[in-house]
């Protein structure tokens, strides 16, 4: 079955009050290596992104939830 975990990213990004530009900066800060276009495509339509890079983006959103004292956390793809 196709992995649809990307679909959770965009709504979570909005709940975390992060623009795509702000998210990309945080993603690079955590060691992400995909381009901003690749990241945007992954968020918008599940464009190709390795599980590792997906998880770095998840980490960026989860850290924003942490800043907002919001208990919500997105699950990671890799164990």
């Amino acid at each position, binding site marked *: 079955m196709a992995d649809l975990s990307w679909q959770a990213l965009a709504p979570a990004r909005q709940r975390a009050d992060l623009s795509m530009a702000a998210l990309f*900066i945080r993603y*690079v800060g955590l*060691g992400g*290596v995909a381009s901003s276009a690749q990241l945007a495509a992954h968020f918008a339509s599940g464009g190709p992104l390795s599980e*590792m890079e997906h*998880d*770095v983006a998840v*980490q960026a959103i989860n850290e924003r939830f942490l800043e907002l004292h919001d208990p919500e956390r997105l699950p990671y793809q890799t164990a």
Partner: protein
Amino acid sequence: MTRQDGVVEAGGSDNDGSARWAEQRDDEAESREVDADQRERQIDARERVLDRWEREIAARAAALNMLDDVEEENRERARLRRTRERARRRDEAEVRRDAAIERDIRRAQRTERADGARSSSGADDVKTPTACARLAASLQSDPPLEQVLGLILAAGVEAVAECAAGSVALISEGRLQTAASTASWAADLDAAQLELDGGPLPSAADGGMVVTTDLTGDERWPQLAALPDTKAARSVISVGLIVAGTGTGVLTLYANVGGQFGQQALRIGDLLAAHAAAALGRTHERLTYDAQAEAWQHALASRDAIGQAKGILMEQRSLTADEAFRLLRDTSQRLNVKLRVIAEQVVAERRLPDA
């Protein structure tokens, strides 16, 4: 007889045609220069995007150890070339601005000659371009926003005969507040309108121009009838200031009691608001740039610490880079602490923090 730029402009009735020709020539020059400015702004914007992309690619290549020295040297040379080109275009734009100021002054002089015995309203025709020319000259040094707003309002009071005072209110902490005014009573009238949520000022907040000839008697805002009779002003023009499609403030001109704003004043109000919006746009751009630069600096420092921590864990525990990241990530989640903080502890203590 006056000669300017090789053009004869005489003061007799026979020479109305030559004055008209000079006016037309100045209008054409202005239109050409507006086009040139616009073209160059587009080129600048394109090149800034190109620079950003290149830096992004270089940063990623460096992170992946794929940076080719020769390629990077070529990119750096291209970036320098673009920077030099931008500086040249800025110099040219400055020359064009100087020419525009000279044209404004020439127009004022032509109007003065053509209208020897002016009525008091005719005098505004001369005061307006002169005030605007002075304003444009002051703005060349790109002063701070508060100063720019003061200059704009001073030009308004000077250029509009009926105008007794002016103010600019800006959105700060989610609500409009007076940021500059030429008289304390103007700031008080701003505050009263905002507090009672009625009047031209709050009504113009989303853009456009709102005018009244009787601030306390206008049936659109019955709540203002409770205001004590405003000794200083009844007629008011408020113009919304729109930056990047969003209402960011309102410029207001207050007329003397008994004075009503004419068509000329409405036009000047629009002109001043355009200046104020441009100044706000520049400030907004600068603040956005500063905030982004700070965010990138923070991100790069974080990336560096995480890279070092991964290296330590990879060596100590014979892990791959991805495994080391997952270990840091899981520790971060378990302790509810940012990954960067965990990484800094690993770098400082050469071990993962205790649970």
